[in-house]
């Protein structure tokens, strides 16, 4: 299960999607929208994706995690659109024979997702709004360059 959705994420669906009789551990990571960031009181967050490419990159990350660890199954769901405070914006479930691999695979998946998947987050706070990361410098990610982690 790899998808974008504009509806609330139901984590039970990810648990079901990664259920496997050979898996002794499932690690579920849920990213939540927080009411504060860098000293600002955040009202809500809004996510925008490049559909197609975002799903393709998510598939690629899941494949990569499955090659690096003996994972049974991986599910990734990312919410798009306005997400009120205190709700899930992203959820990842990884099942494996043993917990160590499940933890590692889930950690890798969320870290990599935040580096490469074309999904943007806009933070609305008291008195304004900002696209997170927009203040970064001029150098972009180019394929096969150091800026895009190879692992």
């Amino acid at each position, binding site marked *: 299960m790899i998808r974008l959705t504009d509806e609330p994420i139901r984590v039970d669906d990810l648990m079901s999607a990664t259920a496997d009789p050979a898996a002794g551990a499932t690690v579920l990571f849920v990213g939540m929208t927080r009411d504060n960031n860098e000293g600002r009181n955040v009202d809500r967050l809004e996510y925008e994706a490049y559909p197609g490419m975002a799903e393709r990159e998510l598939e690629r990350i899941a494949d990569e995690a499955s090659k690096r660890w003996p994972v049974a199954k991986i599910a990734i769901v990312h919410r798009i659109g306005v997400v009120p405070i205190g709700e899930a914006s992203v959820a990842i479930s990884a099942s494996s024979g043993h917990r160590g691999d499940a933890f590692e695979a889930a950690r890798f998946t969320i870290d990599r997702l935040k580096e490469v*998947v*074309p999904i943007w987050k806009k933070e609305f706070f008291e008195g304004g709004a900002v696209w997170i990361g927009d203040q970064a*410098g001029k150098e*972009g990610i180019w394929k096969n360059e150091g800026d895009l982690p190879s692992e």
Partner: protein
Amino acid sequence: MKVQILFFASLRERTGQKSMEHEISPGTTAADLLEQLRRDLPAMTSAGRISLAVNEEYCEPTQELHDGDEIALIPPVSGGQ
């Protein structure tokens, strides 16, 4: 040759459009296009970091563009700790 350029997030807001057609000359690379856009679009001259994807794949700066390519300008992705 014509390519389709897609704008997202801060770039969509800055330029006031989701996409546009753009004429390029043969041999134009991804890096050339980005340089042209930064120069020609006032909204982009002050834009920060931008990556390019060609037909839904991150590309190398030296990649040559072709007629009909879909070029996405990708500002920094969501990040967060």
